[in-house]
């Protein structure tokens, strides 16, 4: 027994080294595989506060650009106002001055909230950014995030009281359902982790008529993103010989390098859709006892 203690004492530094390595590696494999780390919630609060201070300074340098973008988006939104449209039938001009809501069965499906980005990276293979709205302000997991000029940039993956963490489109584990504007063929949008200016759109059928410069939109099948937001344009076309599908290189429309103001989009029917999907799966795959 004495020898065991002597042995431990003699190599105490080495054992400390092993223990610390084990702790680090367990952190690494436990939290990074599931990026919704609980302890990041606390860390997010602390680093979030420091980041906010830093961001106040940083914001000044891109005010001009940001204003320009904001102006563009406002402009396009103004064009969508119902009051722009009139119905010149039957000699009476009907001008609507509010968006119809709950009158003739209209309902709201998407809700927008604005937020500022307080921390952002593009230099790793798994990029996240942090925004200054948290669960107190109604942010929940799986909400979509678009930049102030209306291009999709990520999905919320972790929420603390005052801040949330979003997984950028520039994250090798992020997948978004996207479709081509021209033919409507849909595929899976991923990032290969190499060049932050380009994303990869997979599983587009060979029958699709694709040319360079075609627009890629968020798909109508996406649970997170509202349909029709521009993700980017096709920059390269290649055929996957194994599966026989197109693999497209998509130039991103969003500028991930200078992300400042974003909109967080909530799909109010997200829970219902996912619930239905899971229930269906369960119902169909359930082993049946009696004969049909």
């Amino acid at each position, binding site marked *: 027994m004495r020898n065991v203690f002597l042995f431990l004492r003699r190599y105490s530094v080495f054992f*400390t080294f092993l223990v*610390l390595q084990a702790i680090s590696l367990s*952190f690494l494999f436990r939290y990074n595989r599931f990026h919704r780390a609980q302890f990041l919630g606390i860390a997010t609060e602390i680093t979030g506060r420091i980041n906010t201070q830093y961001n106040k300074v940083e914001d000044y340098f891109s005010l001009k650009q940001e204003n320009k973008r904001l102006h563009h988006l406002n402009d396009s939104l103004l064009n969508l106002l119902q009051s722009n449209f009139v119905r010149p039938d039957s000699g009476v001009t009907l001008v609507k001055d509010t968006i119809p809501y709950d009158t003739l069965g209209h309902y709201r499906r998407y809700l927008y909230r604005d937020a500022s980005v307080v921390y952002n990276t593009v230099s790793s293979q798994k990029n996240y950014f942090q925004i200054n709205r948290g669960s107190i302000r109604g942010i929940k997991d799986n909400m979509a995030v678009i930049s102030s000029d209306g291009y999709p940039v990520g999905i919320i993956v972790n929420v603390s009281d005052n801040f949330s963490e979003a997984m950028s489109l520039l994250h090798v584990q992020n997948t978004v359902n996207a479709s081509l504007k021209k033919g409507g063929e849909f595929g899976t949008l991923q990032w290969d982790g190499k060049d932050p200016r380009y994303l990869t759109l997979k599983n587009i059928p060979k029958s699709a008529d694709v040319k360079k410069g075609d627009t890629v939109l968020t798909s109508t099948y996406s649970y997170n993103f509202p349909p029709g937001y521009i993700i980017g344009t096709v920059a390269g076309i290649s055929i996957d010989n194994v599966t026989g599908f197109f693999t497209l290189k998509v130039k991103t429309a969003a500028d991930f390098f200078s992300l400042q103001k974003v909109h967080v989009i909530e799909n109010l029917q997200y829970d219902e859709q996912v619930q239905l999907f899971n229930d269906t799966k369960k119902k169909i795959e359930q082993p049946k006892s009696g004969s049909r």
Partner: protein
Amino acid sequence: MSSIVRNTIRFVLFILIQVYILNKIPQLHLFITPYLYFLFILWLPFNISRGGLLFVGFVLGLALDYFTLTPGLHASACVLIAYARPFVIHLLMPKDITEFNYREPSVKAMGWTPYAIYISILTVLHHTYLVFLEWLSFGSFLDFIIKVFGTTAISLLLIFTVEFLFPRQLKYRTNVQ
């Protein structure tokens, strides 16, 4: 200034510079992020205990991990170089701690060649391990090799730039003290 105060200020500065300047630089090529923060470990005094060195390395790595949201990644690389540091110093300068005329590893304390070798060995070690851990979950082998070499080159360039631009004021230690 006492050694503890001096190193605490250094710790904060290195983390802030790494997070807010170096990590923000648009990448030079693919994923070469310039790393400088681990220079803190290389600059710690000679007389720090080996166990203490490991803990300081762990805390430094973890502090950076909090900012980059990669818990454990930098911590584990830092612990590795903190463990390897005494061996490398002993290999290059086989003498007792009390025999050193300066408190911290520097060009003055060790001489140009040994200091450069000391920096290079630990930088390569740090980057190889760091990139290896990142690579485990993702990437091709060629990416791995390119990234190790690229990151090491950039880091060495940065470290020597820092050495030249901000010479540390180190007191010559005498027996009178």
